[in-house]
């Protein structure tokens, strides 16, 4: 079935609890709620949904616009509610309560950026209006962490017993796995709710979340909630958030199934169930629940986007193969490459090649054999990938791993050379092993750290790549203690903190490997699987505290990056001057300054590096050998700008270094694989060198790029098969060449030769 609707940015139906953004608050926190609404709320909260509907329905046409808005909202008529609030605000422009409630409507429908200005307007009318202040914090928590946390701390100090503020604080603590502290706040919230006659259901749901984080899957709070309200699906739905941020998709699906069982009209739960089934590769199950979600709530953008993605997946092709590995004997793991049909042919050889290498490498390095088929998805449309990962277009990620299924941008999804897709695939494949080896129990910093470390150590791109802004953050001492490093990923407090956290985690893993041995990383995964946290795992495996590990990291950074960190400002200034001199072609200046910069930090090959400028300067001065040397150093340290790689390959070929030139050319495929000339050249090089398997991969990729003259490529493939001793395939391919070009003499000759009819 084709899903043919336009995603609209509209108010959605009422959600009694929200996932991921997670900070919507139920209507009972409304401090000035109309008594008639309260009695309807009570029916709803006790699970008497029909009674609640009958109760709200007449109020949707109440004389008070504000009451009509609330009743419409409760009935799921959010567009009506929006209109009533608009009119109510026109009628009572000086009333902060109505603006705050209108903001809550937006907040509950995943539109925090629309909600925040309404809270701010309410606060202009009454700066101390707590309902608006809390709403603003909730809205900001979905966007910038630091400002929201500051406001939350201020408000909590002023209103220590406010249930809603206690819940917001508890959620943050649970996200950072500070379960005991969260529990303490939840107990305070319970007491306060009882005292103030506030429905405790949200508190129960967070209690369940705390129990889940303690690995207690049988929380007594579930039954307590269902006794209070038998249809309270949120008791399962709200805790899912804490599974998801810890990569536990199977467990999330189990909870979501329970949520829709007790509350079949919980559309958000159906939607999340569909999205997470898709992450587990259950496409049919995903479709079923997404369609149910859409039937009840056609305005949920996550539902709509994911249904559209399912349509898009019909344009994809599953290519099934195997990846061999050795662990207590030789084995083979099923591998499915899900690629867009337009690029499957040219990408598959590379995806397969790298995935096979990764499976072999990581199985041995992490002592873990894949237990399920590995699924690798590449999306040529970045927004499809974004929907696949977080159900919302526009995210800046390159890849995501859900366990045995990983999804990433295809190289064609971004401008040529924009990212090293080979490294991204390697990074994601490392996640598969760390996530599954620890049964999805490793902390975020650890899985990211291992993936970054593996990129630097065993990946297809040489060198350690630390962006300039990360060096700056290290200099500014912005690194987090390892025990709190997850917060740098989950709740960043400054713009590039996620990147900084990736690099910090990578450096920690690299340091552990160098100082204690690589096996310690594997041992830590075992500890995480045993439900140990970072502090316990570090103590158990490395024999030190996390504080000591932090100090070790400082020492390691001093050893490895001390020079550039201590001279960071000078180095950056010199690099800027090199680029300026490069632009104005002052070659001698470029050489002098680049040498200075490279004495401080030679391994920098990223944007604005000095090596390319140095190469150009030597070329400008006619010193070709020095130019090649500069470019070779850049390449050996992970430089991967396609045009410069082409230049290097060309220069190496001119210098008679054919094998090295071919190696450089091949590396371009990990950055810009859809280049017809490149595959043709590589194929011919490999053929000439007798590397027929390499030649076959290149010619097959070339054919997938739909070259102007396919007959020539079919002939090359036929010749390659002939060299590999596979005359049957050789004959089939030569016939395909002749099918395209019946008068192709060289193909005719090969056909005659293959059929023994060449007399």
């Amino acid at each position, binding site marked *: 079935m084709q899903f043919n609707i336009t995603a609209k940015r509209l108010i959605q139906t009422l959600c009694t609890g929200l996932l991921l953004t997670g900070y919507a608050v139920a209507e009972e926190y409304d401090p000035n709620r109309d008594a008639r609404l309260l009695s309807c709320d009570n029916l709803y909260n006790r699970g008497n949904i029909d009674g609640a509907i009958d109760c709200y329905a007449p109020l949707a046409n109440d004389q008070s616009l504000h009451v009509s808005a609330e009743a419409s909202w409760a009935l799921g008529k959010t567009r009506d509610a929006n209109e009533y609030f608009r009119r109510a605000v026109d009628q009572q422009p000086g009333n902060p309560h109505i603006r705050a409630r209108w903001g809550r409507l937006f907040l509950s429908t995943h539109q925090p950026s629309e909600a925040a200005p309404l809270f701010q307007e309410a606060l202009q009318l009454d700066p101390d209006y707590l309902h608006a202040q809390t709403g603003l914090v909730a809205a900001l928590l979905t966007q910038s962490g630091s400002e929201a946390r500051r406001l939350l701390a201020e408000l909590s100090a002023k209103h220590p017993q406010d249930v809603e503020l206690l819940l917001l604080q508890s959620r943050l603590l649970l996200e950072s796995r500070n379960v005991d502290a969260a529990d303490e706040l939840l107990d305070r919230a319970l007491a306060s709710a009882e005292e103030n006659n506030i429905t405790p259901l949200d508190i129960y749901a967070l209690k369940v979340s705390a129990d889940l984080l303690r690995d207690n899957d049988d929380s007594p709070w579930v039954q307590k909630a269902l006794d209070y309200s038998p249809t309270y699906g949120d008791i399962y739905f709200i805790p899912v958030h804490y599974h998801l941020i810890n990569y536990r998709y199977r467990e999330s699906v189990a909870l979501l199934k329970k949520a829709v069982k007790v509350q079949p009209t919980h559309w958000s739960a159906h939607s999340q169930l569909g999205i997470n089934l898709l992450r587990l590769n259950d496409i049919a199950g995903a479709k079923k629940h997404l369609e149910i979600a859409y039937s009840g709530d056609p305005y949920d953008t996550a539902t709509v986007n994911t249904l559209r993605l399912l349509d898009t997946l019909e344009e994809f092709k599953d290519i099934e193969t195997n990846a061999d590995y050795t662990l207590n004997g030789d084995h083979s793991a099923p591998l499915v490459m899900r690629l867009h049909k337009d690029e499957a042919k040219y990408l598959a050889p590379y995806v397969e090649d790298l995935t096979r290498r990764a499976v072999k490498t990581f199985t041995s390095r992490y002592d873990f054999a894949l237990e399920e088929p590995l699924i690798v998805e590449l999306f040529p449309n970045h927004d499809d990938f974004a929907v696949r990962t977080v159900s919302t277009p526009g995210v800046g990620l390159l890849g995501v791993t859900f366990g045995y299924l990983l999804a990433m941008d295809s190289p064609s999804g971004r401008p040529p050379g924009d990212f090293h897709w080979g490294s991204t695939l390697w990074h994601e494949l490392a996640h598969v092993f760390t996530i599954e080896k620890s049964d999805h129990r490793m902390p975020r910093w650890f899985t990211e750290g291992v993936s970054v470390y593996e990129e630097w150590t065993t990946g297809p791109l040489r060198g350690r790549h630390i962006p300039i802004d990360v060096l700056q953050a290290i200099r500014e001492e912005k690194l987090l203690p390892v025990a709190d490093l997850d917060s740098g990923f989950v709740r960043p407090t400054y713009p590039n903190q996620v990147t900084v956290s990736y690099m910090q985690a990578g450096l920690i893993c690299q340091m552990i490997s160098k100082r204690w041995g690589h096996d310690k990383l594997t041992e830590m995964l075992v500890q995480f699987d045993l439900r140990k946290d970072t502090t316990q795992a570090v103590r158990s495996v490395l024999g030190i505290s996390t504080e000591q590990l932090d100090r070790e990291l400082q020492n390691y950074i001093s050893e490895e990056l001390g020079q550039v960190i201590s001279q960071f400002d000078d180095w950056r200034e010199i690099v800027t001057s090199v680029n300026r001199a490069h632009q104005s072609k002052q070659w001698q200046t470029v050489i002098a300054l680049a040498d200075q910069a490279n004495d401080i930090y030679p391994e920098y090959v990223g944007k604005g590096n000095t090596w390319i400028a140095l190469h150009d300067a030597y070329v400008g001065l006619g010193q070709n050998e020095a130019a090649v040397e500069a470019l070779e150093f850049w390449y050996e340290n992970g430089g991967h700008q396609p045009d410069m790689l082409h230049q290097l390959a060309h220069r190496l070929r001119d210098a008679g270094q054919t094998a090295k030139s071919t190696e450089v050319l091949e590396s371009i495929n990990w950055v810009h694989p859809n280049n017809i000339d490149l595959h043709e050249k590589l194929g011919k090089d490999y053929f000439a060198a007798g590397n027929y398997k390499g030649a076959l991969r290149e010619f097959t990729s070339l054919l997938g790029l739909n070259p102007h003259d396919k*007959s020539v490529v079919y002939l090359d493939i036929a010749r390659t098969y002939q060299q590999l001793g596979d005359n049957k395939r050789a*004959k089939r391919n030569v*016939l395909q060449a*002749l099918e395209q070009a*019946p*008068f192709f*003499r060289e193909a*005719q000759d090969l*056909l*005659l030769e293959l059929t023994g009819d060449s007399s």
Partner: protein
Amino acid sequence: MKTLTPLWCSLLLYAGIPAASLASTVTVVISGLGGNSDYDEQFDQYATTIAEEARRVANSPQDVILVRGEAAKKNVISSLLENLPVNSNPEVFTLYLIGHGSMDNQQYKFNIPGPDITGAELTDALNNIKAPKQLIVVSTSSSGVLQETLAASNRVVITATKNAKERNAVRFTEYLVEALTDTAADLDKNESISAQELFSYAQSATKSYYDNENLLAPEHARIEGELADQIEVARYGVLLEKKDDIAPELLARRQSVSNQINSLKARKDDVDEDTYFDTLQDLMLELADIQRSIDSGG
């Protein structure tokens, strides 16, 4: 102005297989005003190369007329095109316009020294030409607008751009010339380049250029007309070198086998894969055998 003295020969009509001799063809190549010396030189060079290629395969050098530089004035072009029907009666008429085109008052203009020649004027002149097959190649900016005005059942029109709005100087011509001078355009490897192959190569190469340079393509070439496979624009190899020595019966056999191959390919989806390739193999071996006889002068 040169007079045209066409050489007539009997025609072997084909679908993809050229006759021993090229059908009587008159080719006119006109290069327009460059606007600066670089473009002037480039257009001149392109036009000269196209004319040279056409002469290599023409039955008579006089069947190819090159008009360039200051000579490419409106009255010269008009007179040339108007007098063609009087002086010749070719089977195929081919016109190449190389240069800049522009839109002025909703009117296409081919930029030449003195007053430009408009699309309407060109169309009127071309409509007088009675050749049963015509190929008009307008490799200029804004040329796409001419597709509608020049359309005729006996005519293939190739333009460098999709419409009038694509106004930048075009790269298409460079690849057009490449297609005529390089065997790579000959997709079926029959040693003859058809109008369709000419276009396909130039279009594909132009696209590759912009893709490789990571640029948004400002030009999108178009081809219209039913006869694109039947108009030959260049040939090379044995077919060119031995055109007078090939036995007609060999060409007839080659034609017959080729027809059988085309017929088999048309039924590909209805035939079992192994059967298809077995039959194809037999036909290809037969064709290879004929080809060898042609190559060896048999």
